[in-house]
């Protein structure tokens, strides 16, 4: 294990150097909102941010993305035949991504990179990306990542883990991709490995201890989908939901999308756009029939998918990394932590 020491005085210079090879993405303030997006030439990642309102999922999965194009002009060759638009798969780096968000990318990968099909757009973007994580020294009050298989210093899905030590960063080099990024940025001051790892371990324990919320998930596995689905609590849990979709919008592991064609003149493009299981249209048939026409059914779908269907399908834990965004942003305080508790402790009446 190699650890690199980066003096904060050298940080911007290194970031600028890395732009020669990488398109950079990072946390920035946009219209008073903290988001994770592509950095302009003059922009630097705001490393002091605890959290971005919007998750970094858009680095690999833009809110709207052109996937195919065609000409509708019958006088041109190949009219009405879909073509691949130009896509940019040059190297990119997500700077300052939080460990739970990097874990979320790994969960989303299970959906987009399957034995049967490979989602070209997501997978190409994933392969082009270097994940430069930033450990969370001071977890927010809604962070419950340690209950969800991640944590403030978790390394899964990261190529580099940066740890902020006031006047410098320690960078744990986790993969060859991470090493290449540090080389490209000219960060090459090797730190004493043992001493650094010891420092990092101490900070990790302190950060983990600061997360006092424990959300048990241990009993979800043994209950059946049908028992949980028919549990009596869903109407109560869903009662105050206004179906605004905020929770799905901000969530790093919500990947559902819609596909729509848009035509200008004689040229058309097929786009995919983020969609939300909270919307009634999401499942509405052409006939008008709707399998999840009721609000309760949609709220249940969201939490069952996160906490039970995903678990049963992949046996890789929950489809929630405990970032706490939906808890913080839900206008009516619907809280996945308490819903998870309710589900986990539910004893079906036999």
């Amino acid at each position: 294990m190699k650890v690199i020491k980066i003096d904060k005085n050298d940080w911007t210079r290194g970031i600028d150097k890395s732009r020669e090879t990488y398109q950079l993405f990072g946390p920035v303030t946009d219209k008073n909102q903290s988001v994770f997006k592509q950095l302009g030439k003059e922009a630097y990642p705001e490393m002091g941010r605890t959290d971005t309102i919007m998750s970094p999922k858009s680095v690999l999965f833009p809110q709207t993305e052109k996937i195919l194009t065609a000409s509708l002009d019958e006088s041109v060759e190949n009219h009405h035949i879909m073509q691949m638009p130009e896509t940019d798969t040059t190297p990119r780096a997500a700077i300052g991504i939080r460990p739970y968000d990097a874990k979320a990318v790994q969960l989303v990968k299970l959906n987009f990179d399957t034995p049967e099909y490979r989602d070209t757009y997501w997978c190409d973007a994933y392969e082009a990306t270097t994940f430069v994580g930033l450990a969370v020294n001071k977890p927010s009050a809604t962070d419950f990542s340690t209950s969800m298989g991640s944590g403030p210093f978790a390394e899964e899905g990261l190529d580099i883990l940066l740890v902020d030590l006031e006047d410098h960063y320690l960078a744990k080099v986790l993969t060859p991709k991470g090493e290449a990024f540090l080389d490209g940025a000219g960060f090459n001051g090797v730190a004493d490995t043992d001493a650094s790892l010891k420092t990092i371990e101490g900070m990790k324990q302190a950060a983990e201890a600061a997360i006092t919320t424990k959300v048990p998930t241990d009993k979800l596995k043994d209950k059946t989908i049908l028992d949980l689905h028919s549990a009596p609590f869903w109407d109560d849990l869903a009662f105050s939901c206004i179906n605004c979709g905020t929770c799905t919008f901000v969530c790093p592991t919500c990947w559902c999308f819609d596909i729509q064609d848009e035509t200008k003149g004689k040229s058309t493009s097929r786009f995919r756009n983020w969609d939300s299981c909270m919307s009634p249209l999401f499942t509405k048939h052409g006939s008008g029939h709707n399998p999840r026409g009721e609000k309760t059914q949609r709220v249940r779908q969201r939490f069952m998918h996160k906490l039970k269907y995903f678990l049963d399908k992949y046996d890789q834990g929950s489809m929630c990394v405990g970032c706490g965004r939906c808890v913080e942003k839900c206008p009516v305080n619907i809280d996945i932590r308490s819903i998870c508790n309710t589900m986990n402790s539910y004893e079906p009446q036999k």
Partner: protein
Amino acid sequence: MDNPYMPYPVRIDDIEIATEDKSLKTFKFVFLNKEDEEKFSYQAGQFAELSIPGVGEIPIGIASSPVEKGFVKFTVFKTGVVTSHLHNMKVGDIMGIRGPLGNWYPWDKLEGKNVVIIGGGFAFTTLRSSIIYMLDPANRSKFGTIDVVYGARSPGMLLYRDELFEWEQRDDINMHITVDGTDDPDWKYNVGFVPTIVEQKAPKADPDTYAIVCGPPIMIKFTQPALEKLGYGEEQIIMSLENRMKCGIGMCGRCNIGKELVCKDGPVFTLKEINLTPKEY
């Protein structure tokens, strides 16, 4: 691996009005590139996304049969944006097909078995594909008896009428065609709802008999008890589900019933499997 969102270009080769009210049309497509036809190698029961650039995509069951070569066929009910646009298209128009998608009727498991096909309304498309497949001289000996219960509102609403009447003449398939009602005095076949005809005409269950059921929710709902009365077990009843779809490849997340994605883990399930999932279809 290829881009799973990229449709194969096809040309509309023929359009046939399929029912007297013109709400259904059968479209025959040929692939612009011969190699694509080979890549689009499918089994009876699968579906595809019909892809019209500038309009959108719709999941439609494949009505042609794997034993029919040189083209693929789909029968489409006019209901919304994409289906209405398709109904207005002409022979020669270029569009796309993406697939084949989903699983199929369990042909391996059905070998050596008796098969009862039960269909209603316009959900007869993949059942037509299946019948043509089983009746093919190369395949017929692989199956025991074949019974078909197929019903529509009226005689003019039955799909593939010429083929139905031709199958009526054969002695290696037992046809039980029915209509909800008719004022045609010459109607030689059954009158009555599908579940009733199933109860009266379908063979009694035995371990070697399987039923394939495809139809509107109301027909499925009442056919299930009819089959149970005849003694069919949950594993002997095979059904094809429809849910709203977009991607067709298990990624966009809208078509799930519990942890199963109807587009990828289905659309074909046994009743036993369906009984283990929430009824969100």
